[in-house]
């Protein structure tokens, strides 16, 4: 890695003692000796293992659940169903007033995705829990499922989630989050060329080497200590408090050493049910996702569809950009309504475009609920935007790198969401890339700056 200090030297002081120094990481000695304690490195005498009975169907009504054989299985201590969960219908973003509550901790009457948690089995050993889970009988009436976002938005599509009432998240702005800036149709009308293209992704897993999980120990004082690899301690504690209708003061969360997160450990999934198990049995409880669960049950990065329509001039200026983004939330909201609206705030990318129209939708389908991941709301959009930029440049016969200089945002430029640009550095990154990759651009671009005089 090279630090290029010649850029922005005029706005930076390089006289610090500790900042900017390549100090050794204080946690590494623990890592290389195997001494670092991850949550699963704690075990307690009498600890129970929790295994989840999951839906084999993408969408089904639950006619009945029979746990009697599982309860009699040797080694089984407790079997939990929806009725055991004090506040079974929840949504994590309710803490920042993004509702409605739309997800069940344990399925109640219906399952909406293949893999949804239905019954929790707590037993003395993992094997006993697995054997008992196989004995839980659930009678399902299979319902039509929808997997394609466009199909889901059509009238008459199977309704995925009754708590929403339609297969999209209803923002205060309506069926989508909107950004309107300038007059996009006038921009298209005056453009030399129009290019409309569609981009698609499929779900992506964080795939941390350590799977999601927690170990819960009941303390003698009516409190519960939860060793967890959550990415957000109080987010998890406060949601658990709501789900279990238990004062937060009864909960003690210990974490902070996580075997990779990448956004995959911000959902509140394992902790509430494990703590409930510990509360109802008085025993320590361990609930750790198997690798298969991590890969297919834990929330992935959402699949997205992005449609971009651009109006561009022969000289390279983009004069109008319309973006329609669809985020495949799967069966429940989790963080997806936030991600979709974060996308609305990110488009049209780091370019100054006078006429912009953005609609971003959060769509429900019968698949594993998606949630946050590294680059949440932005990564797939950037793929779409930057491939579109390449196509536009070739359409008008410009060098793709030079084309970006023409449109790059600079300090003071007004963004579509009506914030002036501050601290821009796109131009300098491109100038340095031009040098590093031996991709020459015209001298006028190498002479550009993100600064604007007087800005």
């Amino acid at each position, binding site marked *: 890695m090279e*630090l*290029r200090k010649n850029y922005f030297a005029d706005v930076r002081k390089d006289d*610090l003692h500790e900042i900017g120094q390549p100090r050794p990481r204080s946690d590494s000695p623990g890592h290389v000796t195997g001494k670092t304690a991850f949550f699963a490195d704690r075990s307690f005498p009498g600890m129970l293992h929790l295994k989840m009975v999951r839906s084999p169907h993408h969408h089904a009504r639950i006619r009945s659940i029979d746990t009697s054989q599982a309860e009699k299985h040797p080694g089984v201590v407790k079997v939990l169903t929806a009725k055991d969960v004090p506040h079974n219908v929840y949504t994590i973003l309710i803490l920042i007033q993004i509702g409605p509550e739309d997800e069940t901790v344990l399925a109640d009457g219906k399952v909406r995705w293949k893999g949804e948690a239905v019954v929790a089995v707590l037993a003395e050993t993992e094997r006993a829990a697995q054997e008992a889970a196989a004995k839980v009988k659930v009678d399902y009436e299979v319902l039509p499922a929808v997997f394609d976002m466009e199909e889901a938005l059509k009238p008459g599509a199977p309704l995925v989630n009754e708590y929403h009432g339609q297969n999209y998240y209803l923002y205060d702005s309506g069926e989508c989050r*909107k950004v*309107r800036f300038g007059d996009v149709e006038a921009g298209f009308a005056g453009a030399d060329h129009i290019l409309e293209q569609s981009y698609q992704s499929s779900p*992506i897993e964080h*795939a941390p080497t350590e799977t999601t999980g927690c170990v819960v120990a009941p303390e003698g004082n009516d409190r519960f200590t939860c060793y967890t690899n959550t990415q957000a301690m109080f987010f998890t504690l406060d949601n658990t408090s709501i789900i279990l209708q238990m004062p937060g003061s009864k909960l003690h*969360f210990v974490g902070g050493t996580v075997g990779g997160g990448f956004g995959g450990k911000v959902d509140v999934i394992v902790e509430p049910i494990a703590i409930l198990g510990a509360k109802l049995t008085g025993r320590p409880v361990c609930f750790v996702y198997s690798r298969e669960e991590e890969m297919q049950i834990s929330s992935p990065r959402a699949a997205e569809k992005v449609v971009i329509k651009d109006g561009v001039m022969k000289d390279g200026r983009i004069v109008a950009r319309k973006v329609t983004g669809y985020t495949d939330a799967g069966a429940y909201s989790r963080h997806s309504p936030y991600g979709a609206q974060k996308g609305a705030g990110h488009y049209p990318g780091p370019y100054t475009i006078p006429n912009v129209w953005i609609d971003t939708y959060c769509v429900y389908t019968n698949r594993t609920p998606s949630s946050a991941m590294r680059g949440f709301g932005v990564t797939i959009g950037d793929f779409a*935007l930057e491939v579109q930029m390449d196509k536009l440049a070739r359409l008008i016969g410009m060098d793709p790198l030079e084309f970006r200089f023409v449109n790059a945002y600079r300090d003071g430029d007004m963004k579509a969401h009506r914030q002036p640009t501050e601290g821009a550095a796109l131009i300098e990154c491109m100038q340095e*890339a031009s040098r590093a990759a031996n991709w020459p651009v015209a001298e006028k671009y190498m002479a550009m700056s993100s600064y604007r005089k007087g800005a």
Partner: protein
Amino acid sequence: MAIRRGRGVAAINYPTGMNLGGDPTQALVHSTPTGNFMVTLSSVDLGQGMKQIMAQICAETIGVPTDRVVVDTADTDTGPHCMGTFASRGTHRAGNAVIQAAREARQVMLEVAAEELEVNASDLETDGQGNILVKGAPQKSISIFDVALSAHFKRGRSISGRGMFLIPRSYPEKETGAMKPSTCYAHACTVAEVEVDDETGEVTVLTVKNVFEIGRALNPKMVEQQLVGGSWMGISHALYETTEPYYPNRDHGGTDFNQYLMPGPGDLAETEIIVLERPSADGPYGAKGPGEMCANPQIPAVANAVFDAVGVRIDTLPITPERILRALKAQAAN
């Protein structure tokens, strides 16, 4: 058979933080009797090295070496609230909270030192090595060790501070979408060079040259870790990863590391990382959040390079050999 070569570029920016939800983080700092400093947080270290960075930020602010700072974090009984580690917010939000707390603690420390040295606190400075000096008269000094002892056992002062950094929630305006979705933005530009086997659709990423602008590299080696690993993940996203290979069909989802594809140690592109620093106005020592954005520009850069190599556009991720081969066959048929 032809191995065809191409290159592509992409440029991106990335927002720091979770403004649309309201974004607070708190920190507490206090000294021990012998002048070591404890930072108490509830932020989570996912492996990106938050604990180390918070120690360096606290050390810089107090004016002691980093090895005199201990970070106690992610215990809800002791650490004050943090929204969480996501949205590239950890360094920025928690770092600002630590600076505020450390400044308050530093002020008490200087006041105690001033009493010991019989000067005004405003005339004192730290040398970064654990000593407090009178500005312009460095021979007149006291160690932070002695100041902490004095504070604890003689002056009855708590060398401590509280930090709270809140980005208030921005509510998007319903009709126009006017909002403040982020604080500062990090930037990147990546040039990728690939080879495509036009008989199998297999892609080899030969080189990626990444330029990242991240505000301030608080610890350059740790920044390098993030950026190198992120660049790998970006290539991985571009060419390999998905839980639903036949999306929207739900069948054949991978359940292990054999089936969930990511580049192995034999698939690594020659990776160049260049870092620029335009300090952000609101970041801790100018830092922005580099953790997420570093994995983004490789995806379109690789996609554009594939087009440059073989003349087909793959607008669906991941850009698998199958998608390329199908496109090449369609191209040949036309």
